[in-house]
C-alpha cells in the first residue's frame, strides 16, 4: 500500500514485516488528520470516501489495538467518529485489558466530540442495525452523562429519539412523552420542554429555545429576520455567532455582537477569508488584532515555544478548496502563520505566489500557481531552526522540485545544520491513501486545524521513516495515557 520507500534490499523477514506495519500505521494516522468524506479541489467526494473506508477496514482488521489507540493521536472528528463506529460494529475484543482500554477510549472520545457528531453517529448505528450489548451500553452511558437531556432532545430531536429507542434507554417520564408521544398535548413540568410546546403556538416562547430550533419556528410565526436575530442573540453559540456574522450584516437593522478573538484561530481565518476584500481592507486593524488575540489565547491553552521559524505558505488557486470546504486549505495556512508568529521568537512567512506588496496576510486570495522551490530557498537563506511548509502538495511550477532543493541543500550546503523541514498538508489525497507528499526528503503530516500544529510537530519525525515501529507504538501509548489521565482530572 501507499508509498513504500525503495530498496527492500537485504532486510530480514522480521524487519520487513515491522517496516510494513509501521508504514501502514503511519499512513493511517496521517490520513486521519486530513481525510474527510467531502469534495476536495482535485477529487470529488466518492474517491476519498471509498479510499478512507478501505483504509479503516484494513487497519481495523490487521492492527486492532493500535486502531483503537489512534483515537488518542489527535485525528480529526470525522475519523474519530468512523473509528468508533467500526469498533462498535466489530464487537468487543476477547482480551479483557484491551476491551477495557477500548471502552474507556471510546467513552472519552465521545465526550470530547461535538454533540451533533455524536448523535449523528448514534443515528448511523441505528441505521446499520449495530445493536450489540456494548453499543447499547455506550449510548446509555453517553446519554446519562449529558447534563441537559431536555436541551439535547429538543436540539437533536430525531437523532436523540433514534438513539434512545435503539439502546432501549429508560427515559425520564416527561422526556419519553416528549419524544415518543406526539399527540399528547399535556403541559410539561420541565420548563424547557414546556417552552418548546408553547413555542409551537406563541412567538414569544421561541427565544428560550436553541437557535437552530427557534429559527424554523420563527419562520412559522413569520417573525421578521432582524427582530428574530436581535432577540435570539443570547441563545446563540460562539460558532453560530461567527457563522451568522455575514448573514446578519446583510440583514437590515440586525447586528450580532461578537468578540472575534473568542473564535479559534482557524475558524477566524475562514471567517475573514469569507469577507470581501474591500471589507477586509476597511477592518484591517480590527482583524489584525483579532488574529493576534486568537493566537495568543490558543497558545495560553496549549503552550508552544519555538526559536527562529520560517513558513512557506501556499495560496495558489487550488487552496480555494471545494464548495464544502470553501477556502479551507488557505484558511489553515493563514491561521498557521499567525499561530507560529506568536509561538516563535523570530518569524518570517514566504507565500507562494509571493506577497509582493507586503500587505496584511489576511488580504491574500487563492490564485496563481504553486511554486515552492524558490520560497524554500528564500527561507533557507534566512537560516531558521524550523521551516514549516503548509501546502496541498500539488506542486506544479515545476513539479517535484522542492524536494530536490531540500535534499541537495542537506547534502551539499547545510549538512548537519540543516533546519528541520516539515510539510503540513490540510488535504487528503485519495489515490495515495494519505496526504500528498512533496517527496521523500520532506516529512509530510496531515493537518486538520492550525491548532493541531504542536501535535503535528511531534508526530512529524515518524513520517521521515527513521523512527521504529516500537517508538511509534510507545508514542501512541503515551498519548493514550495522557488522554486517560487528563479525563480523570
Amino acid at each position, binding site marked *: 500500500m501507499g508509498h513504500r520507500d525503495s530498496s527492500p534490499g537485504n532486510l530480514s523477514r522480521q524487519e520487513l514485516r515491522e517496516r510494513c506495519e509501521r508504514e501502514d500505521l503511519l499512513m493511517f494516522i496521517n490520513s486521519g488528520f486530513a481525510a474527510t468524506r467531502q469534495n476536495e*479541489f482535485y477529487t470529488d467526494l466518492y474517491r476519498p470516501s471509498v479510499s478512507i473506508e478501505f483504509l479503516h477496514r484494513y487497519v481495523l482488521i490487521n492492527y486492532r489495538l493500535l486502531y483503537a489507540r489512534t483515537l488518542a493521536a489527535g485525528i480529526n472528528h470525522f475519523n474519530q467518529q468512523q473509528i468508533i463506529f467500526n469498533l462498535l460494529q466489530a464487537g468487543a475484543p476477547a482480551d479483557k485489558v484491551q476491551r477495557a482500554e477500548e471502552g474507556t477510549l471510546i467513552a472519552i472520545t465521545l465526550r470530547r466530540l461535538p454533540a451533533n457528531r455524536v448523535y449523528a453517529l448514534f443515528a448511523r448505528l441505528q441505521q446499520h442495525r449495530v445493536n450489540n450489548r456494548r453499543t447499547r451500553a455506550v449510548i446509555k452511558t453517553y446519554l446519562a452523562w449529558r447534563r441537559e437531556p431536555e436541551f439535547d432532545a429538543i436540539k437533536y430531536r430525531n437523532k436523540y429519539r433514534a438513539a434512545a429507542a435503539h439502546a432501549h434507554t429508560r427515559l425520564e417520564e416527561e422526556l419519553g412523552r416528549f419524544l415518543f408521544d406526539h399527540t399528547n398535548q399535556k403541559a410539561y413540568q420541565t420548563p424547557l420542554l414546556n417552552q418548546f410546546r408553547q413555542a409551537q403556538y406563541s412567538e414569544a416562547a421561541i427565544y428560550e429555545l436553541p437557535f437552530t430550533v427557534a429559527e424554523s419556528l420563527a419562520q412559522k410565526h413569520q417573525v421578521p429576520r432582524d427582530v428574530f436575530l436581535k432577540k435570539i442573540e443570547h441563545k446563540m453559540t460562539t460558532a453560530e455567532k461567527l457563522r451568522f456574522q455575514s448573514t446578519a450584516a446583510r440583514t437590515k437593522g440586525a447586528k450580532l455582537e461578537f468578540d472575534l478573538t473568542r473564535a479559534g484561530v482557524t475558524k477566524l481565518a475562514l471567517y475573514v477569508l469569507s469577507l470581501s476584500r474591500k471589507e477586509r481592507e476597511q477592518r484591517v486593524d480590527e482583524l489584525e488584532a483579532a488574529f493576534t488575540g486568537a493566537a495568543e489565547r490558543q497558545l495560553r491553552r496549549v503552550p508552544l515555544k519555538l526559536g527562529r521559524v520560517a513558513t512557506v505558505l501556499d495560496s495558489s488557486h487550488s487552496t480555494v478548496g471545494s464548495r464544502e470546504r470553501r477556502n479551507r486549505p488557505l484558511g489553515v495556512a493563514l491561521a498557521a502563520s499567525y499561530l507560529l508568529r506568536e509561538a516563535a521568537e523570530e518569524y518570517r512567512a514566504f507565500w507562494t505566489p509571493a506577497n509582493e506588496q507586503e500587505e496584511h496576510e489576511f488580504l491574500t486570495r487563492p490564485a496563481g500557481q504553486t511554486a515552492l*522551490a*524558490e520560497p524554500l*530557498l528564500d527561507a533557507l*537563506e534566512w537560516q531558521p531552526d524550523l521551516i514549516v511548509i503548509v501546502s496541498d502538495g500539488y506542486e*506544479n511550477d*515545476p513539479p517535484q522540485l522542492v524536494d530536490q*532543493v531540500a535534499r*541537495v541543500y542537506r547534502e551539499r*550546503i547545510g549538512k548537519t545544520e540543516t533546519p528541520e523541514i516539515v510539510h503540513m498538508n490540510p488535504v487528503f489525497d485519495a489515490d495515495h491513501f494519505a496526504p500528498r507528499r512533496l517527496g521523500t526528503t520532506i516529512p509530510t503530516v496531515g493537518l486538520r486545524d492550525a491548532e493541531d500544529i504542536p501535535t503535528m510537530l511531534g508526530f512529524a519525525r515518524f513520517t521521515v521513516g527513521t523512527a521504529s515501529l516500537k517508538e511509534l507504538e510507545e508514542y501512541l501509548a503515551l498519548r493514550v495515557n495522557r488522554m486517560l489521565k487528563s479525563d480523570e482530572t
Partner: protein
Amino acid sequence: MKHKTTRKQVPLDHISLKGLMLAPSQVLGGVRLVPVLRNEVPADLRLTRRPFDEDIAAVLIDNKTAYYSYIPHAFVADWTFDGAPVVAYGTQIRAEKSHRTTDGKVHDLGFMTARVMQKMRAREDRNRLRFLPLDVSLEGFLSLHFGGPDVIWEEYSRAAIKDGLSPRSERTIPGHLIKGLEDALRVFEIHTNQVGSLLFVGDALASAFIVPHPDDYRALHTTLLTDDYGELLYYYGLYAEENRLHPHEIDAKRVQSLDDLRAEVARVRTDWSELHALMSHNLLGCPVRPEMVYDMGPFQLQRFMTELNPKAENHIGEVIIRNNGTLEYLKSYRLSAAQCRRAFLLMQLAESNWSLDTCAEQLKCTRNQLIFRLENAGFGYLLHQHVLEKARSELRT
C-alpha cells in the same frame, strides 16, 4: 487619423514566441496544459468574448458563398493607435444605442436557433474589430482551392466545373467531448502573468491559445472547452494516460553554495521551457504559409497553415501580430489526419493544373490509385461517375 489602405503584410514565415515564456506544465490525466507567460504587457490591445447562444451560425462570405458553423462566441478586439492602454470592451461603460443591438440577426426556427451574420470580420468602430475565433482559420482551410478545377479536364463532373468544391465541409469535435479536458481546465492554476496555454492531449499538441493581456486570458481560459478540435484528439483523449516528464534533476555536484542552488533551480526551469518547446516543434518555429486577413492599424490579423505534410502533425491557425512582429494573439487547430490528407490532395491537384495524370506522376502512384485516393478522401463528387466506375472495374480485372 488616416492610415494607409494598402499596407505591406508583416512577414510571418514561422510562429515564434518572441517575448513569451513557457512555464512548467500542469497535467491531469491525459491532458497537459503549458502556461505561456508574457513579461511585458503593453495593454494597447485587448480581447473580449461575445457569447452566442444559437445552435448554428451562418456568415455570408460573398454573394454566392456562406459559411455555416456552430459558433459559441466571437472575439472583440480593441486597440489604440498610439500604444496607450485600452479598456477591454466588456468593462467599458457605454450608452450608445448601436452597441445594444446583437451581432447579426437571430432566428428562432422552433427546433433550433440560428444567427445570420453579414461578415466574418466586422469593424465595429474605428478601433474595434469583431471576428470569429478559429473560424478565421477554418474558413481559410475550407476555401482552399474552393473554386475547383481551373482547367476543364474531361474527368471532372459538371457540378465540379460549375460550383467548384461546394459544398465543402469538415467535421470537428467540441472540447467538452475530449476526456478529462473539462477537469484539467478546472483544476489548472493560472499563473499571475499568464497570457496563454499550449494544450496537449496524450502529449500531442492540440491547440495553442495566446491572448494579449493576462486579464483577458483569465476570462477566456474556459473557452478552450468550447473550441473545436480535430477528431484525432478525441481518440487520443480516450486512450491517453497521465504521463510525467522528467527533465534533468538538480545536479548536486555543481552545488557549493546557495547561489549555485538558485542557479540550478533556474536551470531546471529553462529545461522545462525547452522541453515544452520541443514538444510543440510542429507548430512553433515550423515554416508556415501566412495569409493576410485584416489590417487593424498597428496590428494585423493573419491566418496560417503549416506545410501540409500528410505524414506529420499539421496545424492551421490565426494570429494577430504587432507591426514589429510580436505575437499578440494566436489560436491554432490541429488538423486530423484525414483533413490533412484532403488538403494535401487538393494542393497537389492544383499544383499540377488539376490534371490527374500529372498529379499521379508527382505522387508516384497510378492514375487509378489517385482516383481511389480522391474518392476515399471524400472528393469522389468532383469526378464523373464513369471515371470512378472505370477505375473500379480496372481494379477488378
